[in-house]
């Protein structure tokens, strides 16, 4: 199970990881509507390996640190969770160690919203984007950037096998301020 030690407010350490990807029912994957790009890659291990639902393929960077994965949306979206598949046992010195997540409108005004350190991760690592304040459960942004600033064993390049980005499900009924919770309302809310 992923654990976080609360040594400081800004830095959390995540150990281990899950084998299976288990995400809350009320979240949905938002990566399909985004444009994905990376700062550098080795030929054959490009950005498509991050989105192919195949844990055997991985993205390998090929430049100077920090290695960046950029996720750009066409409109402002609410994001809640980032999940990455990283495995120390398979990748050893290629395994990312310090990851910083930034958000903003574009490359010019990204601001760091989360900074974590991984300690020998072995599977799906959940990184929640929520702040402490209940008002900050979601990050409302055009762009997300995942920056790998250092690796385990001081490796130069990184491997990441899969990245998924989650946000809340939208209101199934358009143009309404709130979502419905009771059976009576939901029953009469759609025609199937």
């Amino acid at each position: 199970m992923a654990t976080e030690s609360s040594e400081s407010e800004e830095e959390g350490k995540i150990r281990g990881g899950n084998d299976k990807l288990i995400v809350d029912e009320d979240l949905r994957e938002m990566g399909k509507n985004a444009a994905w790009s990376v700062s550098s890659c080795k030929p054959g291990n490009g950005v498509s390996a991050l989105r192919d639902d195949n844990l055997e393929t991985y993205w390998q960077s090929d430049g100077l640190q920090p290695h960046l994965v950029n996720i750009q949306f066409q409109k402002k979206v609410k994001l809640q969770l980032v999940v990455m598949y990283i495995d120390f046992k398979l990748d050893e010195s290629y395994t990312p160690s310090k990851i910083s997540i930034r958000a903003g409108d574009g490359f010019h005004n990204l601001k760091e919203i989360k900074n974590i350190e991984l300690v020998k991760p072995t599977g799906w690592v959940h990184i929640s984007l929520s702040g402490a304040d209940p008002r900050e459960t979601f990050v409302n942004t055009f762009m997300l950037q995942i920056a790998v600033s250092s690796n385990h064993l001081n490796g130069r390049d990184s491997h990441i096998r899969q990245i998924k980005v989650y946000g809340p499900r939208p209101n199934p009924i358009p143009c309404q301020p709130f979502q419905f919770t009771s059976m009576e309302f939901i029953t009469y809310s759609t025609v199937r």
Partner: protein
Amino acid sequence: MMLENMQVAGGAAGNYLLGLIYRYTGRRHSSVEHFRMVLLLDPLFWEAYEELCMLGVAEEASSVFGEVALQRIQETYLGQTSSFSQRTIVNEFSDSDKTLKDSKLRHNEHFLGNGQQSVTLDSSKQLENSSQTNNSDWNTPSPVPPQVPDVAPPQLRKNLRAPAGEKMVPERLYPETRPRRSARIAARRKINMSQSSGSDADCLHASSSESNSATSLSSMIEKCRIESSKEGFCSRPVATSNHTATTSGQTISGTGNSVDDEENSRLTGFESGPSSIIFGISEVLNLLRLLGECHRHLLMYNCEDALFAYEKLSEKQYNTQWVLSQVGKAYFQLQDYFKADSVFLLAHQMYPYALEGMDIYSTVLYHLKEEMRLGYLAQELLSIDRLAPESWCALGNCYSLQKDHEAALKIFHRAIRLNQRFAYAHTLCGHEFAALEEYGDAERCYRKALDVDERHYNAWHGLGMIYLRQEKFEFAQHHFQRALRINPRSSVIMCYNGIALHESKRSDEALETLDQASISDSRNPLPIYYKANVLVGLGKYEEAAKVLEELKDCVPHESSVHGLLGKIYVHMKLYDKAVFHFGIALDLNPSAIDAVHIKACMERLIAPEELEDYI
């Protein structure tokens, strides 16, 4: 095309085929003309009446199956013996053609690209076979006394598919069984009962209900012993009940059998004669009239009238799969999912192998969020018939309920591949694409559904929803209007129409529509909620608050009502009440986004100056 100038070959059946062709190619006017001609030529042609209902232009059943029809059938049956053989051949031709077409069209359209072409070719080939077999069986003397059919003719057609799995394979692989079945059904219609008994025996093996076959076989043997003095008499009306018991396989279970024996014993000494024929005809017409009226009401979406009419049927008729599934559909259209569930459950338990209407049942279970029962139903249906689109629709609904939209999509595509003309599968596909927010594909699917059946109001509604999400409010409103023209009683569509009108800045019309919606279905709480929303949009906070205060007593567990009330009180600067309602809203488990929103509102209340900026 002027029908007066054109004599269609095959009489009623030929016209029916033409009507179908015109309908499938979108020439509605001609298809209606031809279906009407069918009913003129042969008033017992139920399928044509059904098609007219589906096109939305059926006349009242009492006029179609009324006095004129009675006269016409009497003429046909009590016609001179000299014209007997000629007419029998013609009639068998038309009947077998029709039944062949039924089964063919249902199963083979998706196999054959130009279905209509091949049907005519195949059926003409088969007709030669059938007439040969008919002729060979001609002289077998085993007349059946004329009886009142207690089973509605419609079930016969349905039952061509009913005992799905094992029966479907023989149909396709052994086409020679079809002429015999058609001959059996021809005899159901009239004339020479002798063929029927011969073919019955042949087809008995195909019937999956063993008890029925056993009973019918014995009653058949009993009848063979009865010599009819008028064996060549052409005017045997319609079906004998044992006959229909065989053909209808499953649908006439226990009750059907007991009726057989009763009627057989009662009518053993029955003298065939014109009076009995007239009696038979009028009984048939009565039944058809009742069923026709119900069906017409259902397809015009006057569901309450339809339900009322169905109540008038005798208990035996009511407890048959076809009628029960129609009743279930009526409840479904009225959004009364609990009653629909119980009716469909009864239908399914009584006739587990009949798949018609089970796709609607799966949607009912979807609305009731019964995951386990839906999963079980889907598994059951698939094990009965893997090649029926209804089974796959049920499975797709199951996946969709678990929010696995991609899997559901794949499954609905399979259903479509099995039967391109199954409009509901297209609509469900559209719903899944819409859930995945792929609006282009969703639109395509809905339009395909509308190609197949223009009166499929679910597809119109689906299109409206897409445009609503894309904020093309005028388009949305137009499509909701079309849906309402077809089904004027649906309060849900009226609500959405209201929402679309409000967003297009026609708020007065919106309020009117929402009022109509709440009148049309008093159990639906949503029109009142939407009305409050519209009033908030117009700035009429007091009215909105009043409306919602009433509503919250009707639906105490709905967090959105309290959330909206809170926001209204904030606008009205009644901050205590606002906080109170926000608190209740949070207690009622709102969704994550709403929870955040409400909490944010509450926090702002502590600092009122910031309120105007936020809300």
